[in-house]
């Protein structure tokens, strides 16, 4: 599947929720099931600091594709992170650099991308692109 197709899949999944609480319940569930980043990878170099919550992002390249693991203090943030990992992990640097993801806005979570929200998500997306640029 392309990045666009995975995005559409996520948008479809969220379309069944009419209540915010249900959306959050789902993100919490996703957050809880995201494979925890290894403690050894949860180091200063992988830390993206925001004043609301911290995000850790670890990237590895294998056979020309980037694989991401990540974590956050905040479980809803972690739920959104798990969606980003699902979209970006296992992609080539070229795919990542050419992508312009829209699903976060489409599922109504754009507030989380505001620079002032400072939960690390915006920086995380930027960091994913930096990794892609570094390996391309």
């Amino acid at each position, binding site marked *: 599947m392309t990045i666009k197709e995975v995005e559409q899949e996520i948008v479809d999944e969220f379309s069944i929720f009419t209540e915010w609480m249900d959306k*959050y319940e789902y993100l919490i569930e996703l957050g809880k099931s995201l494979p925890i980043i290894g403690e050894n990878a949860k180091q200063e170099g992988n830390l993206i600091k925001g004043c609301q*919550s911290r995000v850790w992002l670890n990237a590895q390249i294998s056979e020309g594709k980037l694989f991401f693991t990540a974590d956050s203090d905040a479980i809803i943030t972690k739920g959104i992170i798990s969606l980003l990992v699902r979209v970006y992990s296992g992609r080539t640097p070229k795919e990542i650099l050419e992508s312009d993801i829209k699903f976060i806005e489409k599922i109504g979570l754009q507030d989380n991308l505001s620079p002032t929200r400072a939960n690390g998500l915006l920086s995380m997306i930027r960091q994913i692109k930096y990794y892609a640029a570094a390996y391309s």
Partner: protein
Amino acid sequence: MGKISSVSEIRKHFPALEQQVNGKRLVYLDNGATAHKPHSVIDLINQMNSRTNGNIHRAVHELSAQTTALYEAARRDIQKYLNAAHPEEIIFTSGTTASINLVAYSFASKFLNRGDSILITEAEHHSNIVPWQMVCDMRGAELKVLPVDDSGNWILESLDKLLDNSVKLVAVSQISNVLGIINPIEAVITKAHSLGIPVLIDGAQGVVHTKVDLQKLDCDFYAFSGHKLYGPTGIGVLYGKKELLESMPPWMGGGDMVESVTLKKTTYAALPLKFEAGTPNFIGAAALGEAIRFMNQIDLAAVSIYEKEIVTFLIEELTKIEGVKIFGVSDKKIPLFSITAEGAYPSDIAMIMDKLGIALRSGFMCAEPLMQRFGAESMLRASFGMYNTMEEAQIFVEGLKRALKMLR
């Protein structure tokens, strides 16, 4: 006319409280960050923006005369409300941060030298830490810190050791924006004055929840913001004792702060204009005056009793919830509660409660050193204003329980 004493009457003056947020009735509990404004303040802002707009102190035309009158009336009403001795001791700034920076730069450039120090506490907002760090760095001075105990109260016993003749200024908050404890500033002022050391009080939260009498308090500087006191944003006050302000050099240069200017030499205007360079936020100042007049109509003693009931209720209910920890324990507490909850992260709780219409704050609360003191990455804060009801306190507790159930 009797004063307004009931919370239901107070609420009627605040249009923002009537709105729905995320399809729910708004329960606004972020008053420690900023408060809503009453009709009278909003009306004056609108009236000035739409009609009475002329730059103050400069022109002879009628509109300028009217705005100047409103600006100076605000200064006098603020002076009376705080019981300052002279109107010129009230300097308009853009807010608490600007007030503290003004003192930091002006006072330090004259009175702070290598080897001197400034004393703050561990429970300060960043705006009462960073300006002092900056001027200490500039002047080769040291920043000393009075610690707090595990309940968040100042450890006054440390004061004797910290206050030596190197200390040139003490700068402390009346009420911490995280702990909500009314600090024993009187004891610190007395002690500092016995050694001839001036004291600045950060009154950003204090002016909202206590009746301040500056002559009785006898502090040397007092800083606060308009927008937390039901006034507009972008306006605040620095109070300073006249003799002290007169001895300090101006901080910013520009129009309105001068007596005469030649390209060789400028002489400065007298107080308060010496510290009000450039066109001030005169509409904001006039509207802050209106907010003060609104405060004058409120029975603050009745509000204080009601606030205590909310504090008692919240302490009781929050301690019942498993894993919830309250920071700032004292019998002198305002209804401002910073908490952590085991197994749930503050920003997650705040996000869920936002969708229930409840506005809270989460994060460092601009007090990172205090967070470190308590080993917390982040906290959740509910801060009440005089228009918040007991019913809203109950909604907060129920919402918190619901959020915790989802997250744990």
